[in-house]
């Protein structure tokens, strides 16, 4: 038995959500998916450890959930969209999470995003047919 290798696996700082990740973290993602229901969110908040047990989320996966270690969860195979169901209502936006992944503040993360668009209006002017205000 072996997981087939993929040419995306060497992209740095990136965990492509494929069969290998989805298989290993199925219980974890099922727990995260359950947060679509408000009653489940309430039940989790009342006793996170018991909620993990109910979903058979154990070992390192359980530790990551209890510590809200989003990078750990991601590396272990959590899907980013499913993780957002846990993070966002608890005050961690996708930008906060992005900053955590890089070990910087959210403000620094947002400044890096803004810098990606430096010169945007000039670039658009140089191209044909773009709306520009």
């Amino acid at each position, binding site marked *: 038995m072996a997981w087939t290798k*993929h*040419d*995306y696996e060497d*992209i*740095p*700082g*990136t*965990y*492509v*959500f*494929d*069969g290998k990740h*989805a298989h290993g973290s*199925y219980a974890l*993602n*099922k727990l*995260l*998916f359950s*947060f*679509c*229901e*408000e009653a489940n*969110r309430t039940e989790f908040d009342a006793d996170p450890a018991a909620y993990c047990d109910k979903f058979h989320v154990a070992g390192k996966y359980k530790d990551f959930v209890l510590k809200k270690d989003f*990078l750990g969860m*991601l590396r272990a195979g959590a*899907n*980013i*969209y*499913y993780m*957002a*169901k*846990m993070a*966002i*209502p608890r005050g961690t936006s*996708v*930008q906060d*999470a*992005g900053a955590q*992944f*890089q070990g910087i503040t959210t403000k620094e*993360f947002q400044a*890096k*995003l*803004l810098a*990606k*668009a430096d010169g*945007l209006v000039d*670039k*658009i002017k140089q*191209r*044909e*047919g*773009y*709306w520009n*205000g």
Partner: protein
Amino acid sequence: MAKIIGGVTSSHIPAVGNAIANNLQQEPYWKRFFDGYKPAQDWLQKHKPDVAIIVYNDHGLNFFLDKVPTFALGCADTYDNADEGWALKPVSPFKGDAQFSWHLAEKLVEQEFDICTCQEMKVDHGFVNPIRALWGTHEVWPITTIPLAVNVVQHPVPSALRCYKLGQALRKAVESYSEDLKVVILGTGGMSHQLQGERAGLIDVDFDLETMDRIASDPEWFTQFSNSEIMRRTGTEGIETIMWLVMRGALQDNVKIVHKHYHAPISNTGAGVLVLENTFI
């Protein structure tokens, strides 16, 4: 007979819905992004399509990872929005057209696109936010909708080329329907962004602009890239842009480019609006 009048693209990120819900469209951060939707809104008002086929991806509302269809078509008379885990109030239900959907399903399967048919389908922000950005938010929506969900969440996901071919098959399916309907195709999602991992925050403005220009006038250019190449260049979530190829494949080869609008960053994302018109309308 039904005819496709054109296609429109839009980002579908949650922040867009939040900005609309909180009436932030004219705040400095959002103004340029939302102002660039006006020509697209005007085009839709002018041509008044009857039905919008929304090509989008589910982010874990309707589908869980126990069953992940590559392509799934809504075949119901209504589609409900629901809580995605963020405790937001759902928007009003959307009206569908089951008879048209089943015709599309039959014609797609005939053309060897063995699509998953869904008689119940909850629609999430990927579906809702482009509609809100293009038509506004309504208690009774001014457009009949058909959801066409593409798996871009759990790999293997279909290639850009496969999405383009689905669009070509969708065109034949629409044009063989007996009712006089004006149909618009929405390609949603993208453009470059990566939410996950230490590489989060990636945006590639140059590649996004090139992609917009090429999808408008030379869509086969985009089909040369493998999914690995697209993710390497535009981020893991940037792979959503392949869904624009479904829209583009459903249009004629030489379209009239009505509108091109690009803005970045919106939240973590490069956001593009295209309005492409079939010239026979």
